[in-house]
């Protein structure tokens, strides 16, 4: 089964804590990434640019509306994701609990809709 791990956290704190070169992954995340790969669980994953760079798009009555910023203004921002392969929901939750951001933010586990 495929699961999406959605990583939420305080964006300001995360940015402040990031090393100068933001292209470098933190050691904790490097280790987590390696573990996902080695276990054959990693399908995809990315860190997102901060919500300041977000644009929200919607089409209403044939008219396209664009808004600067994220879909919802919340205390914690959506900051990245992993798409993983896991045999069941319990295993996916187990992976989420090991995600470095689980300690400071929240990792939401969402099963990917199965089309069959």
């Amino acid at each position, binding site marked *: 089964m495929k699961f999406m791990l959605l990583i939420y956290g305080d964006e300001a704190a995360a940015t402040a804590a990031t090393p100068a070169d933001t292209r470098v992954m933190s050691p904790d995340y490097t280790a987590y990434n390696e*573990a996902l790969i080695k276990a054959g669980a990693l399908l995809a994953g990315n860190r997102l640019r901060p919500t300041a760079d977000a644009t929200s798009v919607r089409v209403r009555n044939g008219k396209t509306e664009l808004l600067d910023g994220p879909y919802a203004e919340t205390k914690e921002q959506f900051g990245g994701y992993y798409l993983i392969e896991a045999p069941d929901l319990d295993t996916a939750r187990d992976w989420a609990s090991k995600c470095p951001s689980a300690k400071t933010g929240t990792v939401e586990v969402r099963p990917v809709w199965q089309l069959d």
Partner: protein
Amino acid sequence: MDDLARRTAERAARDSYGRLLAFLAARTRDVAGAEDALAEAFASALKSWPEQGVPANPDAWLLTVARRRQTDAVRRRQTRMAGEVHIQLMTEELEEAAANPQTIPDRRLALMFACAHPEIEAGMRAPLILQTILGLTAIDIAAAFLIPPATMGQRLVRAKARIRELGVPFAIPEREELAARLDAVLDAIYAAYAKGWTEIGDTAAERLADEAIWLGRLVVSLLPDEPEAKGMLALMLYAEARRGARRDGAGAYVPLERQDIELWDEQQIMAAEALLRQANQAGPTGRYQIEAAIQSAHVARRVTGRPNWDAVVALYDVLLGLTQSPVALLNRAAALAEIEGAEAALTSLDAIAGDRRMADYQPYWAARGHLCARAGRKEEAYEALTLAIGLSIDEAVRHYLIGQRTALQDG
């Protein structure tokens, strides 16, 4: 109110609750209905006993409150039929035993066998036992099992429905079946202990470890002739004795071989040794006795200054023959390194290097990392320690491993 008074009262309430629930459920197979009948009375007991002391006859107290609440409910026409049937049953039984309430038969063992029946999903056996015997709520149990409370609640409800619908027997299995069925009960209790063991610093989890030990004692008292039950209790006590030594003053992780033996709880070790001796009188047989014996060889350090590594390796060989478990092979390798060196230990790990179960098993990568470091294989050590770090949930363990990896670059 001091902590001890509260815990004593809680224990008494749980003891009584579990006995009454087991008695009711064993007669009707309706665990949920029995819980309904006792729920409010048990909640009142948990509230008032710590303040007012444990009543002289806890069973009678619980039952009186259960009956009164039931009467209130009938008056409000909100009663649930199942609960009513249970109260009825209980009243008849208690009236019979009015002169001596101790005659309520203890069916908790039968209830545990029902909870750990092969028809019940293996992962739900421990939560089910914790809830029915100890009255823990789904919320109490959920976090330790990494399951959201609502989901845990649903799974418990389903498991109880299964017990009723499939007619899972509330009975102590016959001789020929007993060993295998008892293993399932012991495994469930030990699983609860393991959940409480890994979550250090979390008070709820530490209490889960206490609950598991209490259940272990209960099984030993109810099945005094079963060496494996004693072996498992001993194994839990050996581990528990070292709880205080697992972290230093700053909260950093301390591996077993570097723990300060002054911080080990001598009383618990002695209790474990005594249990293990009793269990071994017929010669060690089961998995838990062997694992307890391994712990005994480890703590020999407090007398001889050094763990008895030869005994540890030999015991792991017996365990391997019994279980073919990759975890046993992994632990054996760590002990083998102390006798034959890290290279020999690494070679022994080749047998499980391709095992899929090891790919996301944190202890495997941690052990492999340490062995590679000792063997001077720096690159491999770095890679293995990195994986172990990525697979760690415990912050203290993660920091310890990061330290090990840094030492690799410095050394």
